[in-house]
C-alpha cells in the first residue's frame, strides 16, 4: 500500500482522487474553489476598510482557509514522507524545449533555479514570480474562479461560463508559453 502511494500516481487515479475532494466538500455543504481564499486573506488583512469588494462575511470562508492550511500540510507530508527519489518522468520534448529556453530540468517537481531560497537572490527571478502571481490573483478573481472552481467544479456542473473561462486559461497559457516566455527567460 505504502509503496503504491510513494510512486508517482497515474493520471486516472489522480483525477479520480481530485473528483473525490470535490465530492467530499459537497457533502460538507461547501463548494470546491481555492482562489476565494485569496480574497478572504485580503479581507483578513483589513482591505475591507478601503475597498468594498473585500467587505464581506469572510467568517463564512474560514472553512476554506482551514482547507488551505491542510493543503500546505499535505504538500509537506507528500514531499517529506511519501516521496521516492526517482526523477519526474517529464517528456523528452519538454526537456529539450525548456533547455532551449534556458531552464534546466533538475528532476524535481519545480525548477530550483526558479523556486529555491537560493534563487530568490536574483532580482529578475523575484520579479517574474511576483508578476506571475499577480496575474494569477487578478485573473482568477476577474474570472470568478480558478482551476478548481471553473475547470473542476464548474465543468462538472456543465456551466458554459466555466468552459469559457477554461478556454481563456488556455489562450493566456499558450500566449505566455509560446510568445512571451522566449523573451522573459
Amino acid at each position, binding site marked *: 500500500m505504502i509503496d503504491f502511494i510513494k510512486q508517482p500516481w497515474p493520471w486516472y487515479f489522480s483525477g479520480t482522487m481530485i473528483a473525490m475532494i470535490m465530492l467530499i466538500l459537497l457533502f460538507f455543504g461547501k463548494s470546491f474553489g481555492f482562489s476565494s481564499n485569496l480574497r478572504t486573506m485580503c479581507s483578513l488583512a483589513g482591505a475591507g476598510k478601503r475597498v468594498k469588494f473585500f467587505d464581506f462575511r469572510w467568517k463564512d470562508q474560514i472553512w476554506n482557509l482551514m482547507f488551505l492550511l491542510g493543503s500546505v500540510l499535505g504538500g509537506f507530508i507528500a514531499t517529506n514522507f511519501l516521496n521516492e527519489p526517482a526523477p519526474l518522468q517529464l517528456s523528452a520534448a519538454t526537456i529539450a524545449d525548456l533547455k532551449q529556453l534556458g531552464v534546466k530540468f533538475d528532476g524535481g517537481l519545480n525548477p530550483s533555479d526558479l523556486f529555491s531560497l537560493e534563487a530568490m537572490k536574483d532580482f529578475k527571478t523575484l520579479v517574474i514570480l511576483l508578476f506571475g502571481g499577480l496575474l*494569477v490573483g487578478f485573473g482568477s478573481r476577474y474570472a470568478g474562479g480558478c482551476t478548481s472552481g471553473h475547470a473542476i467544479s464548474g465543468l462538472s456542473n456543465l456551466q458554459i461560463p466555466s468552459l469559457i473561462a477554461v478556454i481563456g486559461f488556455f489562450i493566456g497559457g499558450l500566449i505566455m508559453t509560446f510568445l512571451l516566455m522566449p523573451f522573459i527567460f
Partner: protein
Amino acid sequence: MKFIKYIIAGTFFGIIMTKSEAVSWYRIQEMFRFQSFHMYGIIGTAVLLGVIAVYSIKKFKIKDIAGNPIVFLNKDKAYRKYLIGGAIFGLGWALTGACPGPMFVNLGSGYAGMAVVILGALLGTYLYGVAKNKLPH
C-alpha cells in the same frame, strides 16, 4: 473542532496534488506544449467523474452530512469576464506553473519562491478589488 474535517480534506488535497504532479511547473509547461497526456488525463478524469457525480446528486436529491439539500449555483451569464479574466489567469499560470491551490501546496513542499508567488497573487486579488468597477464584465 468543527474545522478539523476541512484541514483533513485539505491535507488529502495537498498529497493528491503533489503525488499526481499537478503542482509541477514542468508538468504545466508540458501541458501547454501538448507534449504529454498526463495533465489532460487528470483533469479529464476528474471532470468526467464530476459530471456523473453532480448529475446523480441532482437526480437523486442527495443531501449533505447536515441533512441539507446540496445546491449548485449557476455562474453569472456573461462572457467577457470569463474570457479576459481567464486569459490573464492563464498568462500567470504558465509563467509560475502554479494556480492558487498548488502555490500553497508547493510552499508546504519547501519551495520558498512560492511565497513570492503567493504575495503576488494577493496583490493581484487586491488590485482586482480596486479596479473591479472600471473593468468590463
